[in-house]
């Protein structure tokens, strides 16, 4: 019943006549008969908008972990931050939503300028001079950064902090099957990466990858990582939380060569994990290896300011098998959204956002640690996320807490020592004292 095809039967007939064809089937005569599907697709017939919406509402209704039902204390790279009406309204404008990659700059200045502004904001956050127009998500940005680092250093060994998001580490492993990179996981000691000296290593690293803060919420000592890089000639890739960046020194200030990060926090809904936004910024030296699209400023024939995608020769459609990356479609709409959201936050709001997260985190952590048999998972300083060690398996606690109205956090799981009892908890600026107090009480019961 639903359809978006305008053609009436008469029109189809007339167009076929123009082509000298008898039937619609004749359009497919180039398809060998033997290959053609002899039956209809085994799918239901079309349905109207209201029926399909009702169907989708059913799926939606079956999700207990909706942020309008369970108060969210889960983070781990996906955060329940404020998204104001203004961000939703502007990012939803159909000119941004229904256009494609700005191949014709004359009619794409809107998206191009928004990306230019986004690049500027990401570069400033990173403390680095260049940022690209987005990558798929935090993990894919990390993969691209490692690729860049290996190419730039000429060394395939990558030291990956165990404090990097476990999913990012899994992705690195997956893609290393193709690139042949050697990944070495550097363990955490009490929450912070214990980098080997590296000086006398017979397999010196080409890249160091470290989180800031890391997955456990701990604020890593980037100075130490930088020192290892200096000694070994490796590139320093920092996976930074862009919200924490409101209070922390920038990756660039610590001497990072590349900053990557997950940009979901800036105006994108939790959305069960996607579409999100891969942030990528780097030092000038690595510009020609930058993965993905880059927008630059220029002028038109009349000398008016204009924007255009640039350094295109790096990209797959021109350099093909020698391209720095295979990315084509990226996450532009999320980049535009981030530019809008960062514009809404502004200079003071970004600080305030980070500060509020940190305040809530501190308050929650202190309260939880006053509970019986609840202990810190590690003791390194945290900012806006932290892990606890619980007397009951964390996944059991999450189930119990759901009944009390909370998404309690993320069990650390097998990737971490005694991770079954570890729970990663995140407190955003949206959590009120009442919510936190109730959460603490409920958690006290859940672990009892």
């Amino acid at each position, binding site marked *: 019943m639903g359809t978006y095809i305008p053609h009436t039967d008469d029109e189809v007939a007339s167009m076929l006549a123009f082509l000298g064809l008898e039937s619609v089937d004749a359009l497919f005569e180039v398809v060998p008969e033997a290959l053609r599907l002899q039956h209809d697709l085994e799918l239901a017939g079309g349905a109207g908008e209201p029926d399909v919406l009702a169907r989708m509402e059913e799926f939606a209704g079956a999700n207990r972990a909706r942020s309008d039902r369970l108060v969210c204390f889960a983070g781990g790279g996906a955060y329940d931050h404020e998204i104001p009406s203004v961000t939703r309204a502007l990012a939803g404008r159909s000119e941004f*939503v229904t256009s494609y990659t700005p191949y014709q700059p004359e009619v794409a200045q809107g998206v191009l300028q928004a990306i230019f502004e986004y690049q500027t904001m990401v570069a400033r956050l990173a403390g680095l001079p260049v940022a690209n127009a987005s990558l798929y998500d935090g993990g894919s940005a990390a993969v691209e950064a490692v690729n860049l680092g290996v190419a730039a250093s000429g060394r395939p060994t990558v030291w990956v902090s165990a404090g990097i998001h476990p999913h990012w580490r899994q992705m690195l492993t997956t893609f290393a099957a193709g690139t042949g990179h050697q990944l070495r996981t550097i363990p955490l000691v009490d929450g912070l990466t214990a980098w080997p000296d590296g000086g006398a290593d017979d397999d010196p690293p080409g890249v160091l990858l470290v989180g800031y803060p890391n997955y456990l919420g701990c604020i890593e000592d980037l100075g130490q990582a930088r020192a290892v890089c200096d000694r070994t000639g490796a590139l320093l890739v920092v996976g930074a939380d862009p919200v924490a960046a409101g209070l922390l020194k920038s990756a660039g200030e610590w001497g990072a060569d590349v900053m990557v990060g997950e940009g979901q926090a800036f105006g994108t809904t939790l959305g069960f994990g996607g579409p999100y936004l891969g942030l990528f910024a780097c030092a000038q030296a690595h510009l020609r290896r930058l993965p993905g699209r880059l927008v630059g400023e220029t002028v038109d024939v009349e000398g008016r300011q204009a924007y255009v995608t640039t350094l295109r020769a790096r990209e797959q459609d021109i350099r093909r098998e020698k391209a720095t990356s295979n990315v084509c479609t990226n996450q532009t709409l999320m980049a535009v959204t981030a530019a809008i959201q960062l514009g809404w936050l502004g200079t003071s709001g970004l600080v305030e956002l980070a500060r509020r997260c940190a305040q809530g985190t501190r308050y929650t952590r202190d309260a939880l640690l006053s509970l019986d048999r609840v202990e810190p998972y590690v003791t390194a300083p945290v900012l806006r996320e932290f892990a606890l060690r619980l007397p009951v398996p964390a996944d059991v606690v999450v189930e119990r807490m759901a009944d009390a109205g909370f998404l309690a956090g993320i069990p650390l799981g097998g990737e971490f020592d005694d991770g079954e009892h570890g729970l990663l908890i995140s407190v955003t600026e949206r959590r009120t004292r009442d919510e936190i107090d109730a959460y603490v009480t409920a958690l006290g019961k859940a672990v009892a």
Partner: protein
Amino acid sequence: MSDPTASTVTGAPGGRATSAPLLGRAPEPTLFELSHPGRRAWSFRTTGIPEVELDDLVPDEHRRHQPVPVAEVSERDLVAHFTRLSHRQFSVDLGAYPLGSCTMKYNPKVCDTVAGLPGLAGVHPAAPASLTQGWLALLVELEETLCEITGMAAATLQPAAGAAGELTGLLLMRAWHQAQGSVRTKVIIPDSAHGTNPASVTLGGYQVVTVPSDERGCVDMAALATVLDEDVAGIMLTNPNTLGLFEEDIAAIAAAVHEVGGLLYYDGANLNAILGVVRPGDMGFDIVHMNLHKTFATPHGGGGPGAGPVAVSERLVPFLPGPRPVRAESQNGTPVYEWTTPPLSIGRVHTWHGNALVLARALAYILINGGDGLKKIAEVAVLNANWIRQRLTGTYDVPFDRPCMHEVVLSVRTIKQAHGVRALDVAKRLLEEGFHSPTVYFPLIVDEALMIEPTETESPQTLEALAEALERIADEANSRDEGWMAEFPHGTPVRRVDEARAARTLIPTFDARD
């Protein structure tokens, strides 16, 4: 008259629409120029949380002492700025966008509603399966649907776009060969292929072997035979190919590749042409990616997000990325969904579960169209492209003069030889007519290519207008002098843009302005 205000009135005027093409064509200032110290738009919830000193919260050695200079604007100026930018942007919602290979069809508004449902948009990706049964059910249903459409056994929904799907597919290919104990080094790609294919092959750890197209625009079978050997891991094809032509020898190709132990990879960019008509699985493909943003109308978002699920034949299922959602033995009759990781999984290719809200949009789109509707999409997409082809034959070169599928590649070669007018000029001239340009200079094997994909959502009236515009432009190219055409467009927010200068004097951020 004294002017004590002069000192504070700095920054660009935010409430002035000179930048809107509606009213003029002055450039829109950047948000940084609109910024004025002390302005703000933000507000947060009142939490009642007792405050701790910042010094106590952030270890001193880590603490940033200058805030990140984002921009400082009022909500009013923020709105005006981005609304004006939107008025400087062409989009499907404004007009036809026959950008070949990209399938810029109409994106139904109901899918925006779907993507905004609190029960979908508000779900944290790390919540356990027990709390996200709706999402898992949705993903499983989409996977099954995509498998039926492509004729495959199972699929991963993780890849975030077509290129991500390609790389995933190549890693599947690699894992499969490895499991067979065979080490292979090469992947074959036709010379007409999209740039992501060779780029993905490299990242997949293979060497690219290019196979030429024959005079009919299809894989040259003889040439293929010469490159097929035991080093070949597989071949990547899109069918219809990037010339919009159906590879009629696909069965023979499949047999030949399989014969040497290789796998066939299907680049689904052109799936719109064959929905319900012929399935990659039935053609012999082992691995298939889809571009949901193309075939299933999820909006392209100015360059993304997309979604690039990869479906595979039975023998490759154990290698799929994980975790993947599956329908489990139901306890009391109602199905239960859970995450599993296939035994030989290549691992994770997305931070979470793929571009989930894009996947939800695609499912809604498929449900609305239904099985019957999907076939109609292919039919009308192919009808529209052939109508354009036939109509413009004689006006432009048609390098491969035979029935096309959903898109047609024309060439400006003859016109260029006679009058110096290039495909680029035609593209820019067409902007002035109110249409987006076709894809130009792709595929690379066609000189001065214009790649036109009308899609099924454009009406005969729109096709007529597009054809007339392209005829008019050809007329002009043949009658006006060369310089005249090079002046277009005139009426766009900016006119031809100096791309060389952008690369030469790189200004990738506002701070790089001098």
